[in-house]
């Protein structure tokens, strides 16, 4: 079977859930080959879980500077392996980082790029949801190895243990005149919460939350459900919550199993980032709020009573089960 490259997302210790989704998608197209880019020793820590999810080979681009530069180490590694093995496709997660890596790689390879893909079939046709969820488009790459960025949450990870060959890649050093150096990193202050774009559950607050303190109610519900916290642009602009959590057209696009909107009116630009969620629950005081027109379960009510009540219910039922 032809190979399909998968760029591994990881935090240095563990493989991100999104990578397992990529491996599941890759298996539809060919033999998954995982490309790991990180500091020395990383492949030893990640190899086993990659093989458990079907990676037939693990291509390791380990170097001390892998974490020190933005994007280019991953692009260099993918370009190198692509030129070597001529894969049928290269898959990355459609996160902010992933889309940038994909864009650079496609430019270098003069290859077709498809981003925010939610499905792929064995013939290579990829499905995208565009214009904030108003169109479904199916496309093919017609030139070069397809570079495909898959939207997190679109594929179910599958275990499929195989024997993975490991191979080290020797790449030339990064040229600091052509790459930006990362001099400090602060991980998202979500603490143990899942990443916004990867989370199965997202609980978002809007202007109705009324202030930064009010977001505690949002966070508590998110934590009870094991989800991520999101925010509308109005909430972000008012300083209630940091910008990196903004959901919508100019924020992040999310498509979780469950999206809960608290005190969000449902402006078209907010819907653009969340209306592909599988299930939408909304709580809003105003029965006319547009969000209630598309919620699978809409509550006309005060978020400050409904959300804490729901948090208690969830906690109690989880403890009970």
């Amino acid at each position, binding site marked *: 079977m032809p190979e399909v490259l998968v760029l591994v997302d990881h935090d240095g210790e563990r493989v991100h859930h999104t990578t397992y989704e990529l491996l599941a998608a890759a298996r539809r197209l060919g033999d998954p080959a995982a490309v790991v880019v990180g500091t020395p020793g990383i492949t030893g820590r990640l190899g086993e879980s990659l093989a458990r999810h079907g990676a037939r080979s693990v291509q390791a681009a380990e170097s001390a500077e892998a974490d020190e530069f*933005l*994007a280019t180490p991953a692009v260099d590694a993918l370009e190198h392996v692509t030129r070597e093995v001529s894969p049928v496709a290269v898959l990355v997660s459609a996160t*902010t*980082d992933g*889309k*940038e890596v994909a*864009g*650079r790689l*496609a*430019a*270098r390879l*003069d*290859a*077709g*790029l498809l981003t*925010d893909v939610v499905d792929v079939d064995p013939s290579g046709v990829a499905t995208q949801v*565009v*214009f904030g*969820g*108003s*169109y*479904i*488009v*199916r*496309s*093919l790459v*017609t030139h070069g190895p397809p570079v495909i960025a898959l939207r997190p949450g679109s594929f179910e990870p599958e275990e499929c243990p195989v024997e993975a060959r490991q191979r080290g890649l020797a790449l030339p050093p990064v040229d600091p005149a*052509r790459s*930006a*150096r*990362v*001099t*400090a990193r*602060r991980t*998202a*202050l979500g603490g143990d919460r899942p*990443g*916004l774009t990867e989370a199965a*559950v997202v609980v978002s607050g809007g202007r109705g939350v009324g202030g930064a303190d009010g977001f505690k109610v949002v966070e508590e519900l998110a934590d009870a459900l094991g989800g991520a916290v999101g925010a509308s642009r109005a909430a*972000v602009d008012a300083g209630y919550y940091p*910008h*990196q959590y903004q959901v919508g*057209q*100019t924020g*992040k696009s999310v498509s979780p199993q469950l999206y809960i909107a608290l005190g969000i009116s449902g402006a078209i*630009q907010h819907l653009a980032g969340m209306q592909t969620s599988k*299930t939408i*629950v909304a709580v809003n005081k105003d029965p006319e709020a547009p969000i209630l027109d*598309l919620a699978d*379960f*809409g*509550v006309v*009510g005060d978020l400050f*009573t*409904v*959300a*804490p009540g*729901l948090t208690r*219910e969830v906690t109690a039922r*989880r403890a009970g089960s």
Partner: protein
Amino acid sequence: MNIVVLVKQVPDTAAERTLSGTDHTLDREGADLVLDEINERAAEEALTLKETAGAEVTVVSMGPDSALDAIRTVLAMGADRGIHVRDDRLRGADVVTTAKVLAAAVRTVGDVGLVLAGNATTDGQASAVPAAVADLLGLPQLTQVRELRVTAGRVRAERETEHGEATLDAPLPALVSVTEKINEPRYPSFKGIMAARKKPVETVGLDDLFPDADAVGFLVTRTRVVEAVPRPARTAGVRVTDDGSADRQVADYLIARKLL
């Protein structure tokens, strides 16, 4: 220093966006076109640098005739000159072609210290063009930036993504893409609007940018749409008015849907 700002005209998002039935490209005729809001912020950053450090600001846009309006808007804000890449063959250009064309346009400016772009467009939202342009130009990429400092031949920036924040550092020349939170863009003044009419805008086509290319072999897109269908609109499901039991009802619903 020369600064280039990459700007795109997009359909106003408050309006409905449709795909043309014939070739699945964005139906621009039916849409209200505006300069993408994030690009105003990229322009604002360039103009601040022009005022504080001295720079000549060139605004570049690839698009149909109407894209000239987007260029004029940035000239009215205070940019010095424009390059309008306009060529009918570019209709339906993919990310790679867009990036190649923009990179070639930047090269015509010469001695560029900084290329500024928006982090994502509101129509395509590929969020990949700036990274691809950086790659083609061999420039360090400082993208998704909410704070920017340019001093002594270096650029430092605060990057923000769903995974957290990072401080980036690179020598000039470099490419920066900004988020909508980086600044508040200025409004063009009446004087600015009048002055913009007289500022030079060069219109270039593919033959100007790629004089050696074989026109037949020029790839406009490396992808093909097989099918495009409108997605059925979502409809409302259950609706309750809270009488003190809504929390329990939502929990029951989540259990029934196996979400809890």
